[in-house]
């Protein structure tokens, strides 16, 4: 949790730098590359290892992140030299949140029981766009356990129209109403 919080602070700092340089979107893509690289457990283990010299660590990041903007790499090097490699996931999520707010767009996750066809996705997209009155970045997920229907997650808010949720609701209501009528 501490890493997450410090990650948020780093994210705010790099985002302000990005705005000054007018490179917010490009750095966002770069950070996605960085975050993906740091998903690799071996790579992070190497960067955290005590026997590896600081120079060696920086050389490793320079090789792996060759295509990334110099300023973003500076951030990574700073975190590596401060032994806060674990913060990087937090930096990425914080940065995307800030970028989304800056561009006025909203991330929405759609969960369905079966894969959606593109026409359906478009319909949902226009529905959600009219709902939040913002540009929408749609991600779709398939989860068979919801049985049917649709779950729309808009940021921290959830519109649960899944069959599973309705069945759960029905079970709870029957429990309480039968109890009350007894």
């Amino acid at each position, binding site marked *: *949790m501490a890493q997450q919080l410090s990650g948020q602070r780093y994210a705010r700092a790099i985002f302000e730098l990005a705005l000054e340089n007018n490179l917010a979107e490009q750095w966002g893509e770069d950070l996605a590359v960085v975050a993906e690289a740091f998903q690799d457990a071996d790579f992070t283990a190497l960067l955290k290892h005590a026997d590896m010299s600081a120079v060696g660590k920086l050389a490793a990041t320079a090789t792996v992140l060759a295509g990334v903007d110099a300023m973003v790499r500076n951030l990574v090097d700073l975190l590596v030299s401060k032994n806060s490699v674990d913060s990087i996931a937090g930096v990425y999520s914080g940065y995307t949140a800030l970028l989304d707010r800056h561009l006025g767009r909203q991330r929405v996750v759609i969960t369905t029981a079966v894969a959606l066809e593109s026409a359906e996705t478009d319909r949902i997209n226009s529905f959600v766009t009219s709902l939040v009155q913002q540009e929408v970045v749609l991600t779709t997920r398939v989860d068979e356990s919801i049985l049917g229907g649709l779950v729309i997650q808009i*940021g921290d*808010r*959830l519109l649960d*129209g899944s069959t599973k949720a*309705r069945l759960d609701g*029905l079970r709870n209501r029957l429990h309480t*109403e*039968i109890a*009350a009528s007894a």
Partner: protein
Amino acid sequence: MATRGQDIVSLIKRQIEEFGGDLTLVDVGTVVQVGDGVASIQGLQGVRSNELLDFGDDVLGLALNLESDIVGAAILGDPNAVKEGQRVQSTGRIIEVPVGEALIGRVVDPLGRPLDGKGPVATTGTRSVEKVAPNVVSRQSVDQPVQTGIKAVDSMIPIGRGQRELIIGDRSTGKTAIGLDTIINQKGGDLTCIYVAIGQKQGKVAQVVGSLEAAGAMEHTIVVTAGASDSAPLQYIAPYAGCAMAEEFMDQGKDVLIVYDDLTKHAWAYRQMSLLLRRPAGREAYPGDIFYLHSRLLERSARLDEASGGGSITALPIIETQAGDVSAYIPTNVISITDGQIYLEPELFNSGIRPAVNVGLSVSRVGGAAQTRAIRKVAGQLRLALAQYRELATFAQFGTADLDAATRAQLAQGQLATEVLKQAQYVPLSLADEVVVLFAVNEGLMEDVEIEKVGAFQDQLLRYVAGSHSDILTAITESKDISDEVSANLTKAINDFKPTFTG
């Protein structure tokens, strides 16, 4: 049975017709850290303080710390059921409990769920657990008594409806017994009783419920219990939940008695929660708002004026001291909030003086105004006699032969008073019985009774008066006063009884 089955079928039919009709946008979050019954949650942007959270699988949580990125929540229920990365949903409900008549006679947990195996509680309404106390305008001063049925309390430390009287003492000095006797004494009366057990051993709670049932006192009593094995948040909300149930009756214009057993363990539970939520610790590691914790609870006890319905909540909070230390942090806090205290002493308890009330340290700041006239007339000298006796008793240990007659008389009077105020558990006396016994002492009619035989004398006297002079008891009960005629009749009755007393 058939009709009930039919009911359920029609209910299910209606449910199926309305299936999935309502869709609402809810706030969700993700558990980022969980441990020791406390969860840190990311998300939940719109959550309010004290809102119930749904962790799924019937596990509820309570949002307590609202920070910029993280919500700190206490888990009400099995903390092992919550895992990192789990989704949490807000419910939009500020923590509330079911209230109403249906709870009477039941044993429930702080969320109103039944624990007595008697099936679901058919309550209709709910009330918010946290509520601001009635304001100054809607209150009136205490003017009606709560009869505890305990001679020592009713005569010297009278309790009025709407009062907060602390019961304080070391472990096993009879604190709970005073609360229970008071509840038992309300049998057939108009007071509804609520017994809140906080952090008690489940065995002890079972024993309490058993005693109340045996005395037929569960018919007007609700027991709310959060045991020692329940999570700290549940123990923390228990007294507030009990108070919410009491307020429902108070707002209907009824009188309620609530016993919080005990607030020491309540403070411990809150300390545990606060430390786990990383709130700054103060003296004895209690958080800064530990005083407010109890003051806001006890302020909800009140006597409302007629315009507000005239109901009342009388609170008997219990505090356990360590080695008689009433100047510790929590005891001083609660003493300063309450309208007096009944102080129980282990030395008295062990020397056989039960209830072990220390008369010198016990006070009732407002109850005097509510004391019935009958008791006031006969209890006048008792407190003074006992206080003087305690001082002289130390000297008297070295023999009374050298003392003057007046001192010896004082000693004898004090000894008699001490003996008369002894009372067994679970046998509260009616107002009239108390008056008869105290009258006999006050009028000096028991001075020639041997100290060892005082208990037997009392029992036989009460039986005699009930048998042959029940008109006196009726007169006292109805007028709540001792008229000159009753006084003369009672003196005559006691004098008539004395020769027949065999000892």
